């Protein structure tokens, strides 16, 4: 039960849901390597080595008789009976799972019985698969990944568009230079559609690009939120760390913590935040080491009059 409680305490509820929704048959390995009762332990040892598995079910016509684990083989080598048939040395008192059980049962069993693997039977008691902790971890990671991708797509594709305001949140990943600049390009295209002054669009592009690049280069990852209202453009970049110890220092032109390979890509000039501040009408930065940084940039939209040069 410990395993379940742990998961319950520390992870988002969808992980827990997943464990209950997924069935053993969704996770187990179906491509089985089995041996019959007469197979020698030595042959089984070779099978294990060839397929890099640590347990071989002993099965005939889908009926499960026992299992030979790597420990059984080691004992056989020590005891000098490696040429015995599996039948004589296999573990017979098996704990098995049924394929329609929720995955939570499998996790529970692993914790309770301390076995690394469980054979899986169908409703007719036929051997249909085997499940290991590795299978479970792999499947959960895959599912979490899928969930995260869906979550991100939802965030990015759900612009809240009303008559006089527009906002959109972009997710920026650490070191994702592949997509760096994409959010800013989209923001610029949106602003162009509003028929604003060119210089104003340029200022917004400078601010959004620098904030986006900062997230990619310096943060553990974060979001860039863009809002356009009647009278202002607002950009908020927030990240989950590492945070900035001395905020005054990073506001000085030329100060940069970027390493050589980042500089070789043309970043790390130490002009990012100063650039953002220069083009903003309202600028603020808050940071706590170990927690994260939030930068706000607002650019006022003055309709009808030409924007002053900056």
């Amino acid at each position, binding site marked *: 039960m410990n395993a379940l409680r742990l998961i319950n305490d520390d992870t988002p509820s969808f992980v827990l849901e997943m464990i209950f929704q997924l069935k053993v048959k969704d996770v187990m390995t179906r491509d089985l390597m089995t041996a019959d009762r007469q197979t020698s332990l030595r042959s089984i040892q070779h099978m294990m080595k060839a397929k890099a598995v640590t347990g071989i079910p002993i099965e005939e016509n889908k009926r499960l008789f026992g299992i030979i684990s790597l420990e059984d083989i080691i004992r056989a080598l020590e005891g000098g009976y490696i040429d015995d048939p599996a039948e004589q040395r296999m573990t017979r008192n098996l704990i098995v799972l049924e394929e329609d059980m929720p995955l939570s049962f499998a996790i529970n069993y692993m914790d309770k019985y301390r076995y690394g693997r469980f054979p899986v039977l169908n409703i007719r008691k036929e051997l249909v698969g085997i499940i290991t902790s590795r299978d479970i971890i792999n499947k959960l990671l895959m599912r979490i990944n899928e969930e995260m991708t869906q979550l991100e797509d939802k965030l990015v594709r759900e612009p809240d568009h009303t008559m006089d305001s527009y906002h959109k949140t972009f997710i920026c990943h650490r070191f994702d230079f592949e997509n760096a600049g994409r959010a800013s*390009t989209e923001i610029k295209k949106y602003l162009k559609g509003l028929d604003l002054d060119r210089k104003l669009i*340029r200022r917004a*592009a400078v601010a959004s690009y620098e904030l986006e690049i900062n997230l990619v280069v310096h943060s553990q990852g974060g979001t860039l939120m863009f809002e356009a209202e009647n009278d202002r453009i607002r950009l908020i970049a927030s990240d989950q760390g590492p945070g900035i110890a001395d905020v005054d220092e990073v506001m000085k032109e030329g100060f940069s913590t970027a390493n050589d390979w980042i500089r070789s*890509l*043309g*970043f790390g000039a*130490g002009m990012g935040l100063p650039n953002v501040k*220069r083009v903003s009408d309202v600028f603020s930065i808050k940071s706590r080491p170990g927690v994260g940084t939030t930068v706000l940039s607002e650019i006022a939209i003055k309709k009808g009059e030409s924007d002053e040069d900056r």
Partner: protein
Amino acid sequence: MKIGDLEKKLGYAPLWEGYEDREVLDGYTSDLLSDVMGNAPDESVLITIQAHKNTVAVATLAGINAIVLSNNRPAPDEMIEAAREEGIAVFRAGDNQFTASWRIHELLSR
């Protein structure tokens, strides 16, 4: 000057064909993207050795019309692809940044 002059008058090699032959009003020479972003003039040509997809992103945002890669720097395919998508002409020049800037300045001030 026109973008096409880079090809016709200076012999720089376009890395993709069929770009729109727009007017170029100014030039800027830099390898630091933040510097380009903050200071490059509109409708300009950027002279750089920074042959990277991010250069195209900056050019798009900063309103740069063409990029000249000096010293025959090879451009990765993804950079050329991005430039084609954004409609930004890219050229490879045998000249170094100083010479390329000087020659382009000549064309601009004619």
